[in-house]
């Protein structure tokens, strides 16, 4: 009975997740009347707006990953090493982006950093890009922090730090040569999750009026039939590629934790 229930759950899950995907993919291939083709994909990929918005979002994702890693790795390291009592609070703060809607945050940004504010970031394209990247860093914080913190949990941070200090290393050397390489799997997992989030993000990019991939998908979806489905399949493939890369990185990590 239990086995039957388990299999039933698996089948239900597959149907729930797989059926819409199969339906969408099948629909994206039916642009040419009477036969399956990749016409919708060709149209999407040939669209200069696709290249432009996708390129923009990739750049934003890379910047977000870099800034996110620079913010999160030292913070998580310091909290584990010196402020263990503050960990629940830091975890709470990093979870806030999950409970505060992006639209609330972006309106807050616009109000705080508009052209008549003390820091008029929205007054220029570069400033708005920086603002959008900061928003993405915040959106990705729950995933990045957890991924890095899990990596830190797998090593003896305090003893490794002290060992490096006794060998003459300063904080930057410790972070760059000891801590970061040992939490690289966590950082990369966080990076791929961040990439997937940034590529598909709509609200912030649309409201800050930046040429990102998310708003492009929305515009295309409002005006075309087959292309949005093709675009959704592409976005889905990117996300799954990111997940696959996380798995690969985890599997092919050369070293492992010191064992007693």
């Amino acid at each position, binding site marked *: 009975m239990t086995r039957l229930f388990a299999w039933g759950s698996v089948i239900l899950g597959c149907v729930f997740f797989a059926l819409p995907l199969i339906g969408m993919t099948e629909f994206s291939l039916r642009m040419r009347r009477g036969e399956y083709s990749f016409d919708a994909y060709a149209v999407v990929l040939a669209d200069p707006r696709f290249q432009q918005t996708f390129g923009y979002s990739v750049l934003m994702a890379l910047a977000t990953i870099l800034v996110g890693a620079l913010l999160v790795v030292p913070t998580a390291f310091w909290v584990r090493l010196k402020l263990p009592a503050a960990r629940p609070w830091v975890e709470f703060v990093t979870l806030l982006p999950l409970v505060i809607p992006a639209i609330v945050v972006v309106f807050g940004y616009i109000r705080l950093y508009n052209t008549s504010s003390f820091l008029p970031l929205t007054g220029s394209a570069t400033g708005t890009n920086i603002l959008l990247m900061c928003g993405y860093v915040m959106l990705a914080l729950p995933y990045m922090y957890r991924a890095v913190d899990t990596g830190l949990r797998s090593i*003896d941070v305090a003893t490794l730090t*002290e*060992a*490096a200090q*006794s060998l003459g*290393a300063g904080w930057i*050397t410790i972070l760059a040569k000891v801590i970061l390489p040992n939490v690289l799997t966590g950082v990369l997992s966080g990076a791929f999750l961040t990439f997937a989030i940034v590529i598909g993000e709509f609200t912030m990019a649309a409201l800050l009026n930046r040429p990102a991939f998310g708003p492009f998908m929305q515009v295309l979806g409002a005006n075309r039939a087959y292309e949005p489905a093709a675009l959704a399949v592409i976005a889905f493939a990117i996300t799954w590629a990111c997940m696959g890369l996380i798995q690969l990185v985890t599997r092919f990590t050369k070293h492992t*934790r*010191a064992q007693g």
Partner: protein
Amino acid sequence: MAFLEIEHLEKSFGTNRVVKDFNLSVAKGEFISLLGPSGCGKTTVLRMVAGFESPSTGAIRIDGKDVVKLRPNQRNIGMVFQAYALFPNLTVAQNVAFGLKVAGVGRAEREARVVEMLRLIGLPDKGPSYPFQLSGGQQQRVALARALAVRPQVLLLDEPLSALDAKIRVSLRAEIRQIQRELGITTIFVTHDQEEALSMSDRVVVMNGGVAEQVAEPFEIYNRPATRFVANFVGQLNRIEARVIAPTTGEIEIGGTRHMLGRSLPSGDVALALRPEALHMGADPARELNLTGQVTEVDFLGSVIRLRVDVAGNRLSADVFNRPDAPPPALNSTVTLSASASDLIILTA
């Protein structure tokens, strides 16, 4: 002149004083052990010398230079940890070279030093291995090589053998001592294992409640413990309650029987202590103390037989060598044990 000097060192965590007026002078090349039970403050002293904890008060001088204000990475101190603390992402050779690279030592010299260190610890072929590919004993040897590679002024060993199994522990402690002698490096070794401390050290500091109870050579610590704590903590001890009849001549009474020790004693009731190996089987008029009692336990340990004998309510342990021609006494039999007055320890403090 002392190479490492610790003066009036104190450390408090909140209201808890974990190290109290700790003083120690270590000569260059000396091997000192800090021995004591968990929570006695020995690791805190070591961490203050390393710079991982700041003293509440007191001074730490290395080669005449006060290092209290220096950060750990500025002290040129090598440290080996209980948990090995090898960097898992680096190979053995990279681990050993880590400190040299940080110090800006050139590649050729670095490589030569790594080879020298790996040879010193007996693992010349393990350079390309990762720490997880080594056994615990090998990892700890690499940790030692890594600490020594930077040629530190002082080597600190924080219970480096505790995580290893008994057999490797014994062989590695001999190796550590040999390497220390070979390099002539001033070393402080923290342990709660008295056998390790006694077998490896030039001098032992026995600590209790944040205080150094006795600082002396292992022979002195074992045979002439300065305090009741040291006597009880180091080695096994028989405690005999006695009443002093004549303090000047050393006449005492144990369970109604009088003994003449021939040495002066404090008056009143005293606690006398005797090591198990100071008790000999059989009466011996040449020895001042002859105690008769009933055998309550016989443990055959191979080369040694441990007897427990009840002497007027005092339960004494006696270690006697196994002799094939003299089988151990039977349980409940009556035996006489003898001991010299010079072997008696008078417990005062």
